[in-house]
């Protein structure tokens, strides 16, 4: 398989990988850093991939592991951002009230979930991975995926219900 073939197979999946990264890390530059790392690793390890493994699951697994590593590092070091570089939404909530759930609320809420629950909600609910693929990505049995899905959704519901009394949602820490 040539580099061209690798490109043809991987390229259509990149927008989805970016979307997953952005669900994990709200900052666009940081999220794209994760995707860039993922693509570089995928290209370098293309021939080590098991042929019977879903390429989609393989790519998301690489990205997922990079995101977890990065998450551990930032958790240890704490996030440092210059005020000028922050996204406005981190401080203020724009005053749009159209849908039942607002974009900002749901993204803030999912960031408050434990990583393991956030991952399954994104992989299954947004990236449309099968339960088996999600289990493959995370490296746990399907049963574990299902219980994380159930607990994550329940927790998100509680967070969002609390969101009606708005301040509870913002910057808890």
């Amino acid at each position: 398989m040539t580099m061209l073939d690798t490109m043809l197979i991987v390229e259509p999946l990149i927008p989805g990988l970016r979307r997953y990264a952005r669900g994990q890390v709200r900052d666009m530059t940081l999220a794209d850093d994760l995707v860039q790392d993922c693509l570089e690793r995928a290209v370098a390890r293309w021939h080590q991939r098991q042929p019977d493994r879903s390429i989609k699951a393989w790519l998301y697994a690489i990205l997922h592991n990079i995101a977890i590593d990065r998450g551990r590092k930032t958790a240890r070091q704490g996030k440092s951002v210059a005020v000028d570089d922050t996204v406005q939404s981190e401080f203020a909530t724009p005053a749009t009230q159209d849908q039942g759930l607002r974009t900002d609320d749901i993204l803030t809420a999912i960031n408050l979930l434990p990583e393991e629950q956030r991952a399954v909600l994104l992989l299954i609910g947004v990236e449309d991975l099968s339960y088996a693929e999600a289990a493959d990505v995370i490296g746990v049995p399907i049963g574990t995926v299902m219980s994380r899905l159930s607990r994550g959704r329940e927790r998100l519901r509680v967070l969002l219900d609390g969101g009606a009394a708005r301040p509870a949602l913002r910057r808890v820490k």
Partner: protein
Amino acid sequence: MTDRPITEDDLQAYVDERLEPPRQRRVEAYLADHPDAAKRLAAFRAQRDALRAALAPVAAEPLPSRLDIRHLTPRQPRWRAQMRPLQALAASFILLSAGGLGGWQLNEHGRSSPNGIGALAQEAADSYSVFATDPLHPVEIAEPVGLSHWIGSRLNRPVGVPDLARAGYRLLGGRVISTPHGPAGLYMYEDSKGMRLGVLVRPMKIDRTAKMAEHDFGDVRGYSWADQGLGYSLVGSAPASTLHPVADEVRRQLAPPMS
């Protein structure tokens, strides 16, 4: 109607719209009787939809150039990207030249038409001999969707992946291979006894439409035909009587839709 009780997994799969229709109806009936559960699942669906909607714009953003995989190419040493096809080519030369010793003989019949359907059959037989005998890596990609996308991209037209489960062959996967007439797709199948067969597909310049013809290369035999510019060749080491109905099935599935 099944008696299996409703599980939490069923409810999650209902949110994800992944239930089989009979189970879907069971869950719907359950929810009609349990308004609290129905309310909970409606909230789950709303949050899932909100999450999708919130992140959807990301996938529509133009890719920044650092995420353009074409820019990642130069980092790859050239020899590395080219090694695989060269190895494959070397392997086929070895097989061809070892023909006399190994009893793997080429029949003149296959050589008689170097550009048309005979050439196609020859390429299919050669590829089959290289890849079907590879116990570890008979295929490069196993999943049908990715495979179909890859082959379609290289052949510049949509190419379906035949489903031969009813004929007793499961798809192992496939790969793009090189032929003297450009890239071709090679699908590999296996029956329950481990007997493999291959289906090669590539665009045809000569014999753009051709009736199914039988080719015999000694250890490998098969059937080839062409339809609206795409040539197909099914090959295997099974008897012709086994291969023929499978070839008919492939032709039926891959035939362009009647206009």
